């Protein structure tokens, strides 16, 4: 065989291993995808009124790929909906009460309960599209606000299609209070809510607060009622079962469900069952499959149950078996739109589990369950959910680091994302100060943060930080600065093809051709940046205020501290910690563009501003020499070059400072900065015009906090140093936000590095790689993900996708199956990896 073939054989795509027949079956069955006879596809349920609305399109405003389909989704889901017989008093209740009742009715009495063959965990079907339960009046009002002339949809489209980015109040992206509900049961939660209700005055009881609490009490009985159904089903199946072992399992599952999740959990099996049922019903409540609804520090709060069961004689492999069943369930979230086919969003869900990390006083919290879970991940990989995140810190034990590096080395799209505690905690301490919540986030509590979704840092059980709700292209401010607050070109609507002349959108910051100094250009850019941030904030207010009025999620509200206490739904801002994250996109492209303008026009006089603008408007055609200078001769962020990185830090400081100035009006949530760019930097590359860094329109933008593709010519250590610097680096005097660390992004920033597999080829090299990770913990960012893949393999996968169906790659903060992401993203990954020189 040829050398290439031989190499391919030795670098085989990772396969799952050590799976029992049961798990092997369940896992393979899951991967049959749309060919399965059973799936967890959306079922739709209506009140039956002709004004009923089911699909809440606002939750998809942060998924621009769906824009052309929003109308279709809405109509077809409604057409496919089955009516639910309403309680006779239904229309006399408040909206949250209607919603709570309807979702419970659907999940308990309408959606079938099923147990997959051999499954040890109950809770199969949970993806639903339920009626919004609006009265005719409510629907009319809400529809006007969303679909009317200056409605949210129109505003969202304008914002996105003009290249600003996207924004929308969306679901999930939080860590519900799972630890608590396992400990005190839903019974305990119910009692707390009821006690709260009893303390209300008679007037309050009849008013909004009372309605909300009543709704939450209704919602709190949903898991109990559903568990009862499943217990009955398991009993029935047990009676029919002839295989002795399976019969016993089903009987135990029935027994589990008679207790949990209403009562506190005692055994590991009960705990995992309670966790799953509680979690899946959130997705039912929000009508959205798995969007960053995360489990938090699962190896910590499940540990007591694990230990107890181990002490009582549970077989360790059986404990893992239970977890593997749980794993399969998490993936079925993707069944929601299973027949719509492969598209860039099918990696999207991010039900994160967090392993290890620091505890109080810097202690390391790795435990026996951490290792058991790592084994589960290793044995089940490649599989997308639940997405694992490992927290590393200065005192991470060598044994854990060894295991982590081993797993990265043998898996292509590294199975997890690595979070770095000190840097992350520094960001949370900044948030505590700036949001005025030091009573909730402080030196005693900050170690209990955990990431959600992909990598966004939040607290657990009391925090909604809206971590993907606002995604802003910093680069738009460059275009506006270059054209005195106007787009370069007239606008053509991408769906209707309707044309619109250029308008004065941003402030008039001056004709850049008349600027005589770099500082003048910087000031123009700064003012346009303030403008685009204000646009994003205003747009978010639109969807946020509509959601607050019309889209309560009383079930989820039970699980987030602050809601019951205040009598507010989580959608009304009830969470104790209520923030809205502004995720900046196109950071490196923006920095490199500013560096290029300074270098080409003001420092080296390679061209006039007029020539540069002409070149950009021509998409560099006829200006190849200038483009080459922009690409190759101008300084770039990511090379550990102090001057370039200083510009990057300046850009960072500007937009972060501006972001902190804002709060939402309807829900009083504090805006905070972050840098997660999902996949927007690929598609928005087709919207934003050519940029001064040498990028033509149609080419991808930079992602998250990573340097531009090809810019980081000094390798991973330099790349890392640059990232750490722009986050704030270390405080020389021992000050800093946490220990010496500074971090201006409490949300964290996605950072991806592609490593050639040869770097981990043997134990000696893996030792070196561990050293790199320890160095990263000092010099780098809040999180890191590694692509351990070579360009050859990716190109082969493009040619023969059928051979690479389970090939996972890391995009930015999340894993995806390479063969299912769009062609543009595939090409970007190949280009990215080809550039990494080692």
């Amino acid at each position, binding site marked *: 065989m040829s050398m290439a073939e031989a190499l391919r054989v030795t670098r085989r795509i990772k396969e799952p291993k050590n799976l029992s027949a049961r798990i092997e079956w369940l896992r393979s069955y899951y991967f049959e995808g749309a060919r399965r006879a059973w799936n967890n596809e959306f079922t739709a349920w209506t009140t039956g009124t002709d004004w009923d609305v089911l699909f809440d399109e606002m939750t998809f405003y942060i998924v621009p790929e769906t824009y052309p389909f929003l109308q279709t989704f809405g109509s077809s889901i409604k057409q496919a909906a089955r009516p639910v017989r309403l309680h006779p008093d239904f229309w006399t209740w408040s909206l949250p009460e209607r919603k709570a009742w309807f979702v419970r009715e659907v999940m308990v009495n309408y959606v079938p309960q099923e147990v997959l063959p051999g499954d040890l965990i109950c809770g199969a079907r949970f993806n639903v599209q339920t009626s919004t339960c609006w009265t005719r009046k409510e629907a009319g009002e809400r529809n006007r606000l969303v679909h009317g002339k200056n409605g949210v949809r129109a505003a969202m489209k304008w914002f996105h299609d003009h290249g600003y980015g996207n924004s929308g109040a969306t679901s999930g992206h939080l860590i519900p209070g799972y630890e608590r509900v396992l400990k005190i049961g839903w019974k305990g939660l119910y009692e707390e809510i009821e006690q709260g209700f009893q303390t209300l005055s008679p007037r309050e009881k009849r008013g909004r607060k009372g309605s909300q609490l009543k709704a939450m009490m209704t919602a709190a009985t949903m898991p109990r009622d559903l568990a009862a159904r499943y217990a009955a089903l398991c009993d029935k199946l047990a009676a029919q079962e002839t295989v002795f072992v399976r019969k016993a399992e089903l009987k135990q599952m029935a027994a589990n469900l008679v207790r949990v999740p209403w009562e506190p959990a005692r055994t590991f099996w009960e705990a995992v069952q309670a966790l799953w049922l509680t979690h899946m019903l959130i997705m039912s409540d929000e009508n959205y499959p798995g969007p960053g609804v995360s489990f938090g520090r699962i190896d910590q709060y499940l540990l007591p149950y694990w230990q107890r069961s181990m002490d009582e004689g549970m077989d360790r492999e059986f404990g893992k078996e239970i977890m593997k069943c749980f794993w399969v369930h998490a993936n079925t979230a993707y069944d929601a739109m299973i027949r719509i086919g492969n598209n860039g969003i099918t990696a999207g869900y991010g039900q994160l589990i967090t392993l290890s990390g620091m505890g109080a006083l810097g202690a390391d919290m790795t435990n026996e369950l951490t290792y058991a879970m790592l084994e589960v991940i290793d044995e089940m990989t490649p599989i997308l959910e639940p997405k694992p995140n490992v927290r590393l810190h200065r005192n991470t034990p060598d044994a854990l680091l060894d295991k982590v590096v081993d797993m990265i080395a043998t898996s292509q799209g590294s199975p997890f994302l690595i979070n770095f505690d000190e840097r992350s905690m520094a960001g949370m301490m900044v948030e505590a100060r700036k949001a005025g919540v030091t009573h909730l986030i402080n030196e005693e509590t900050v170690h209990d943060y955990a990431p959600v979704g992909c990598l966004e840092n939040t607290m657990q059980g009391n925090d909604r930080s809206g971590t993907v709700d606002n995604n802003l292209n910093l680069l738009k401010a460059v275009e506006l600065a270059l054209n005195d607050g106007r787009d370069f070109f007239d606008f053509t609507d991408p769906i209707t093809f309707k044309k619109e002349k250029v308008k004065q959108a941003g402030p008039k910051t001056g004709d850049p051709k008349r600027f005589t100094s770099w500082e003048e250009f910087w000031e123009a850019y700064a003012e346009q940046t303030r403008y685009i941030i204000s646009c994003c904030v205003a747009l978010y207010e639109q969807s946020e205020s509509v959601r607050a009025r019309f889209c309560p999620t009383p079930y989820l509200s039970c699980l987030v501290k602050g809601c019951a206490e205040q009598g507010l739904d989580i959608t009304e801002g009830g969470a104790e910690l209520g923030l809205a994250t502004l995720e900046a996109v196109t950071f490196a492209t923006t920095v490199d563009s500013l560096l290029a303008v300074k270098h080409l026009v003001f420092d080296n006089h390679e061209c006039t501003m007029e020539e540069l603008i002409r070149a950009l408007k021509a998409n560099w055609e006829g200006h190849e020499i200038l483009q080459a200078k922009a690409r190759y001769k101008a300084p770039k962020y990511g090379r550990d070059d102090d001057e370039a990185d200083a510009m990057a830090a300046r850009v960072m400081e500007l937009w972060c400072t501006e972001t902190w100035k804002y709060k939402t009006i309807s829900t009083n949530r504090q805006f905070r900065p972050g840098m997660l760019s999902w996949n927007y930097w690929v598609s928005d590359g087709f919207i934003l015009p050519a940029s001064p860094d040498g990028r033509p329109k149609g080419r991808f933008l930079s992602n998250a906090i990573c340097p531009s593709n090809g810019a980081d010519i000094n390798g991973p250590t*330099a790349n890392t140093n640059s990232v750490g610097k722009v986050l704030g680096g270390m405080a020389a005097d021992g000050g800093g936000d946490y220990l010496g660390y500074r971090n201006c992004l409490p949300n964290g920033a996605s950072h991806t590095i592609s490593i050639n597999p040869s770097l981990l080829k043997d134990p000696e090299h893996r030792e070196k790689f561990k050293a790199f990770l320890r*160095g990263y913990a000092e*010099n780098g960012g809040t999180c890191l993900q590694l692509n351990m893949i070579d360009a050859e393999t990716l190109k082969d996968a493009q040619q023969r996708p059928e051979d690479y169906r389970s090939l996972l790659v890391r995009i930015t903060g999340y894993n995806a199956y390479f063969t299912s992401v769009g062609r543009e993203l595939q090409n970007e990954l190949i280009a990215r990896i080809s550039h990494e020189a080692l």
Partner: protein
Amino acid sequence: MKKEKDTTATILRIQRMSTEDGPGIRSTVFFKGCPLNCIWCHNPESISPGVQLHWVGSRCIGCLSCVAVCPENALSAGKNGIALDRSACTGCQRCLEVCPSTAMEAYGQSYGLVGLVSEVLKDRIYFENPAAG
């Protein structure tokens, strides 16, 4: 204040995150100029102590600015790209300055001792780890 004269050297390359041929993660400094002339040399461009130009085809955009600017007519364009006549080249580096895409590169750059050390120490944190060395 009188500035001390800095020691200088011609450096071929500073390779950060070197993982081969030695323990831990290191930054390797490749000096230009070697007294040997091994027939198996893997870096023959490092043998001569002087700065040498060379053409990197993958970055060339074919603008021919280098050919036009060379005072010794040492550069010519052909079907294999840009050819460099080393007997004519004086190393004036005008081609390097004028090339818009860094396709004309110099083997060898002068570093002062202080600058070199500070560049190398940028990765100090990766060396100082006891496991790395």
